């Protein structure tokens, strides 16, 4: 599992690649939580495109981050979710709980951040 973060004034982007499972979920939780604490950013956009394998422990870790962020008053969305992971999220009953978007632009528009990002950078592709 590999995690890369991208900070903007309005959200924290995180991209996960590799396996998000029993052996890596702990590290995932720790790193995401500490990045949120460090940056003070409350909105989290998690890119799952590069996740090759996920199990119920990985799904639980994603839900746990959602709960944390929500408790702090922030929003969390998922982007670029592979079909199989989408099916597993649906099986987990998280179908409508954590919003999923095709890409960053769609997510930002839905979160009401699209315009802000455009104003600031003129470019909207930081976590791609």
């Amino acid at each position, binding site marked *: 599992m590999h995690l890369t973060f991208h900070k903007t004034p309005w959200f924290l982007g995180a991209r996960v690649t590799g396996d998000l499972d*029993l*052996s890596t979920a702990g590290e995932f939780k720790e790193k995401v939580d500490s990045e949120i604490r460090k940056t003070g950013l409350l909105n989290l956009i998690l890119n799952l495109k590069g996740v090759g394998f996920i*199990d*119920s*422990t990985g799904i*639980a870790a994603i839900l746990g981050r959602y709960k944390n962020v929500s408790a702090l008053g922030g929003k969390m969305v998922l982007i670029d979710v592979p079909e199989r992971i989408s099916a*597993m999220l649906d*099986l987990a*009953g998280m179908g409508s709980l954590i919003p999923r978007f095709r890409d960053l632009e769609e997510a930002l528009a839905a979160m009401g951040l699209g315009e802000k990002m455009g104003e600031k950078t003129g470019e909207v592709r930081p976590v791609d």
Partner: protein
Amino acid sequence: MTNRLFLKFPAKAENVQVARVAVATFAASGEFTLGDVEDIKIAVQEAVSNAVLHAYGNGTGEVEVEATLDGRGDLTVIVRDNGKGIDDLKRAREPGFSTLEEHMGLGFSFMEAFMDSLWVESSPGRGTTVRMLKKRCP
């Protein structure tokens, strides 16, 4: 033609991936699609994770995994531990039921969803055996 793979290892988290990759590689020698092999990976991961997480508490124990490709080309995977067993199997298999915090109780649901059949036998104090069937692609 039949073929069989047998693994026995200590119930440690780092062995879960080894078991899932070994069974997936074994299954790939049969008539399964790439999607089927991904399904099998998840089911094996969940069954072996349960033996590692739940069977022995903080103690140690062994896990056995047996995979068989039968004459029809169907795959049976058996995951066995000699741990504490499950008191209420019906309840344990319900989606969302877990005895561990920060776990979602989705393991059995995923095994059921991604395999064609799932049988679980357990006796408290003696251990748990999970048997799963994946039919070859028609």
